[in-house]
């Protein structure tokens, strides 16, 4: 249960955004809308306690975020604008690393299904560097599924994805919210996803 109370951030005495408040209740989706450079990524980073807000505060489970930061991190997955899979290694290695490093309880069958739905299953032995950018972006969602944490914080998840991938994205968002998960993501176009709260920056 994440609550952000009239957060405002200044960088080099330039106001990026002012008293933004939002609350992330399990089961709902929040979208951050705004033009490029309107501070969407800064807000997401502030929620992750990477950026220190100049005013306002963020609460997680009732306590100040700084107090129980690592408990918050246990429930959060973050997908940034850059693809985090290791280009030098094959897809299989990446999956192994993710499975081990995130100690994820997702079994191989589920990964198999996810790969099929993302249509990445025949690239298992290819190096990630050879995949197209769209495919590596889809790979990020595989990590999302493998970590399977409660809170998803996504930065521009729908950029350069093709039609049916966006369709697939909506599907996974609904499943996740169904299972008491919550999502906050930023997007500069209008994705047409059912959204419970909308923040315009």
């Amino acid at each position, binding site marked *: 249960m994440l609550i952000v109370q009239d957060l405002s951030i200044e*960088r*080099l*005495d*330039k106001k990026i955004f002012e008293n933004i408040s939002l609350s992330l209740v399990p089961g709902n989706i929040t979208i951050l809308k705004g033009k490029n450079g309107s501070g969407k990524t800064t807000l997401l980073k502030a929620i992750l306690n990477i950026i220190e807000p100049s005013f306002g505060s963020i609460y997680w489970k009732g306590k100040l975020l700084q107090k129980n930061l690592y408990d918050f991190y246990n429930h959060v997955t973050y997908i940034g604008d850059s693809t985090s899979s290791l280009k030098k290694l094959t897809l299989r290695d990446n999956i192994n690393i993710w499975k081990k490093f995130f100690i994820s309880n997702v079994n191989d069958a589920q990964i198999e299904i996810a790969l099929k739905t993302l249509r990445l299953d025949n690239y298992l032995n290819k190096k990630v560097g050879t995949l197209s950018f769209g495919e590596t972006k889809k790979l990020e969602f595989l990590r999302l599924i493998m970590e399977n944490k409660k809170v998803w914080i996504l930065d521009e998840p729908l950029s350069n994805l093709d039609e049916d991938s966006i369709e697939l994205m909506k599907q996974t968002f609904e499943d996740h919210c169904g299972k008491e998960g919550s999502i906050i993501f930023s997007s500069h176009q209008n994705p047409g996803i059912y959204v419970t709260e909308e923040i315009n920056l």
Partner: protein
Amino acid sequence: MKFLVNPSKFNEMADYLFRPLLILSIILFAIGLLFSFYLSPDDYQQGSTVRIMYVHVPSAWLALLTYTIMTLYSILALAFRIPFGFIFNTAVAPIGAVFTLICIISGSLWGKPMWGTWWVWDARLTSVAILFIIYLIIIFMNLSFENRIVREKVIAIFILVGSVNLPIVKFSVDWWNTLHQPATISKLSKPSIDPSMMAPLIIMTFAFIMIGVAIAILRIKTEIISRKSYLS
């Protein structure tokens, strides 16, 4: 004491202080040079080569003093979030570098007659050379980071890490009985320097301090102005 921490207060104090400081330093330099070249006697061992001491020793003190003050301001800036510390670091680094350079050049000029070589790989000399290169790195860092916030803080962290070298420079003479003579003035007992030679040394030190502070005031003011224009 607010002007040591607050930029606008510093500006007021600076306008008020700068002119007298400059005049005073010129006067002190004149007297100091006069004393050190004509009015003070030769040394019983070294003869007139000892006069280099009147430039070498003050510049060495100033080099170390500048770095210690920069370390203090870095701690202030990082731990207590006082932005003036960053302004001070960027402004004063070249002044410290120049003092260290004067110290090294005058030292090697003095070393030639006394030790027989321009440069000896000796604990004190190497650590002063490292100090000089640390100053240079601080200046280069000022030029190589785009983002101002990152640049300031990384420089402050580097100054703190580099301050490990300060005690080495200070105590290198006592730790390793090296070629460089032990500290003359810092001895708690009667300083082993004759009053007639002490006078020019003190005058020259104050002259160096005055000129250093005057230039520092100028550079800090320009730094404050450049930051304001950058922001508006």
